[in-house]
């Protein structure tokens, strides 16, 4: 059975072959030498991203919810605000863009950073991770921001729009408290081997090779014969660093415990 990552790669390759998928040249980073970013970019985590990484159109089947988890786990909300409504960094959900709102342009902004302090995240979350963030951002509804703000009687600012509640945050860039989640409709259960894609793990991990994080096979090999399920469940939930190097594992509070145990069992069973 093909792993989810292989499926993604297949889809990507198919899409690449199609016309009309040429990356936007103008959105390309200024410096593309190996391991280089322009001087006016800050590398997130101190890890400089690979050159020429924009390799495919956005894979079609990414889960925006997992991208939302990554948006928070990678501290994007620390500057763009929870729900990406804007904070010290600009709003990403007002339908307006400094560097273009096309997939390629957003990918480039995240992967290579932008001047004025947008860090280059490509080095720590890789191509898949950046595409997941793009899928999250593009899935957000654009709120009713209109060119006119009116305080006249009956004007749109006379009563605060509902969206205003999301704008209140604290300095230093933390996210506002998200609204209580609507009761989720019962999702079809997925088998453990599809959970990594569902929960966004494939942004950093693959079954059979190192991506940003170690391959699942390497993880299984390291702990073969040891009773580490509970420990790894905790690690996936809370994140951490040091075992596989200094690039930290992001926390994944979005994964329900039952799925977490099933997924960890599956990972540890890999040969």
């Amino acid at each position, binding site marked *: 059975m093909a792993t989810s990552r292989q499926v993604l790669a297949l889809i990507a390759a198919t899409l690449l072959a199609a016309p009309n998928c040429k990356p936007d040249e103008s959105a390309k980073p200024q410096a593309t030498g190996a391991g280089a970013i322009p001087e006016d970019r800050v590398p997130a985590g101190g890890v400089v991203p690979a050159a020429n990484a924009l390799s495919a159109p956005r894979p079609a089947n990414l889960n925006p919810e997992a991208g939302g988890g990554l948006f*928070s786990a990678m501290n994007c909300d620390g*500057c763009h605000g929870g729900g990406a409504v804007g904070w010290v960094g600009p709003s990403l959900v007002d339908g307006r863009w400094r560097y273009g709102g096309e997939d390629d342009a957003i990918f480039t902004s995240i992967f290579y950073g932008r001047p004025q302090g947008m860090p280059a995240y490509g080095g720590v979350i890789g191509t898949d991770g950046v595409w997941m963030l793009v899928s999250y951002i593009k899935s957000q509804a654009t709120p009713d921001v209109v060119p006119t703000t009116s305080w006249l009687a009956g004007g749109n600012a006379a009563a605060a729009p509902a969206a205003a509640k999301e704008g209140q945050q604290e*300095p*230093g860039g933390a996210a506002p408290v998200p609204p209580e989640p609507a009761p989720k409709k019962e999702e079809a259960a997925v088998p453990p081997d599809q959970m990594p894609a569902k929960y966004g793990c494939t942004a950093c991990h693959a079954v059979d090779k190192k991506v940003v994080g170690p391959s699942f096979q390497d993880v299984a090999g390291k702990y073969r014969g040891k009773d580490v399920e509970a420990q790894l469940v905790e690690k996936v939930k809370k994140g951490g660093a040091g075992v596989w190097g200094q690039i930290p594992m992001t926390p994944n509070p979005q994964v329900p415990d039952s799925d977490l145990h099933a997924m960890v069992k599956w990972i540890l069973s890999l040969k």
Partner: protein
Amino acid sequence: MLVLLVCLGALLAAPVLAQGTDGDWTMPAKDYASTRYSRLAQITPANATRLRPVWTFSTGVLAGHQGQPIVVNQTMYVVTPWPNVLYAFDLTQEGYPLKWKYRPDVSPNAIGIACCDVINRGAFYADGKIIYNLLDGHTVAVDAASGKQVWKTQIADVGNGETTPMAPFVVKDRVIVGAAGGEFGIYGFVKGLDLKTGKLLWTGRNIGPDAEMLVNSSTFKPFYDKGKDLGKSSWPGETWKIGGAPVWGWMSYDPELDLVYYGVGNPSPYNAEQRVGDNKWTSSVLARRPSDGSLVWGYQFTPHDNWDYDAVSTMILADVQIGGKPRKALVTFNKNGFQYTLDRATGEVLAAPPYVQVTWAKSIDLKTGRPVLDSSKQTGASKGNVKDVCPSLEGGVSPASPAAYSPRTGLFYTSTNNMCMDFAATEAQHFRGTPFIGAGTPYHAGPGGHLGAFMAWDANRGKKVWELKEHFPNWSGALVTAGDVAFYGTLDGWFKAVDAKTGKLLYKQKVGSGVVGNPISYRGPDGKQYVAVYAGIGGDWFLLAGDVRSDDPADVRPPSDPYKDIGRYTSQGGMVWIFGL
């Protein structure tokens, strides 16, 4: 009765540690005691109604204009927010034309790494030089006469999440500076540079092992805390290495004790469950020797801070009556809602009454120096959304709006915020150069529904003397003069003069943009008293106020509760204003 008590306070108050000539304003807080008290007395409650604007200047920069001008040798020096232009105005000529302007090359990377707008808190004049920080981690000294750069020293690294909004502080031949970055998991510090050359002479960490904090166990004598390596042992594992402890506020100096005092900011991340322990010396005041940086005492206002209560508010050195006796005190209005009066020789807490609504703690235990906590207001990722924590993390007083003290009235004057917050912490991961926070904390108005005020406070009795309620949070610094007039500005763009004894409004003027800067007073070449202040909303209000910007068509935001009307009254824009009779 009130007036009688106020006069009594004035009689009992001993002289303050005022520096410089009366007519100049050479350092951020006027003097080493940080009183922001001007001994000029031409402007009085009787004539202040005749105040009028005499001059304005657009700085050409839109970000938040915190800080204040300085005035030396009939020249006014103004530092803008990033890109940190330094202007020198000739006050002897009509229209105050520029003598020169200095435009440093400042990295734009600092824009996104500064947590809360690209503000600058001002310059310090010493030894013929104007000394200030560029936001991208450099300190510069510029010749006050010619505008030529004398030296430039890198003291912080933007790639680490460090930026430098504070004003340097100069004592003898040392320039003392620190870095912001409590939202980026920095390893906080202060540094001592040589005034003549800018050479780095010492670095004292605010957290970590004794050796790196410049602690000598024979001379470090905190009043309450004993033991070795407290800045390390009060953290789990090596979390102190990314524990924050920024320095972005103000400093004071007592020449008799030869101690520099400064506040240390919050621990990182906001989710306190990732850093179980006291987290010393975050949210603390530290007292150091300026010559070598050695630490003499420390006091932690908020142990295991889980509300982002940075302790970087101004530390005013004044004599306060405790039990009927004058004590050499350090007075500060902490973000956490308590007004602390400390013995400035030892760090002993002499009094700590609340000055706004406080819910996170019931009181401060004067025996132990520790807060008596309300267990229902402790935050952390496992605790979910903790409601109604007061004050909000903007502080009962924002450290960005320093208080003033008049030895004539014996009263302290300060802007206050009347806001509470809900605090929902989440797990956070540290990636160098990115935010390290882990909390969502929306605000709401405290009791009464108004969001801010300006008040006179009697530290002898731990009581408010008068208060002027403001519709919006109040974010300007305070100025008080020997004419018994106090000055402040509001977020909706009014500059106000009030009677220092009674709080009666004497004069107000709309100044073009919200005021988050600090008024000063000086004597002009014509011998007359003037008052100067910046307008230019920003700082946290760049983030919080919703749509107050008009310069970026790609960034449009809805109005923001609970201050959704701010955009109706003000927009961004940096202006220098001078008022006179």
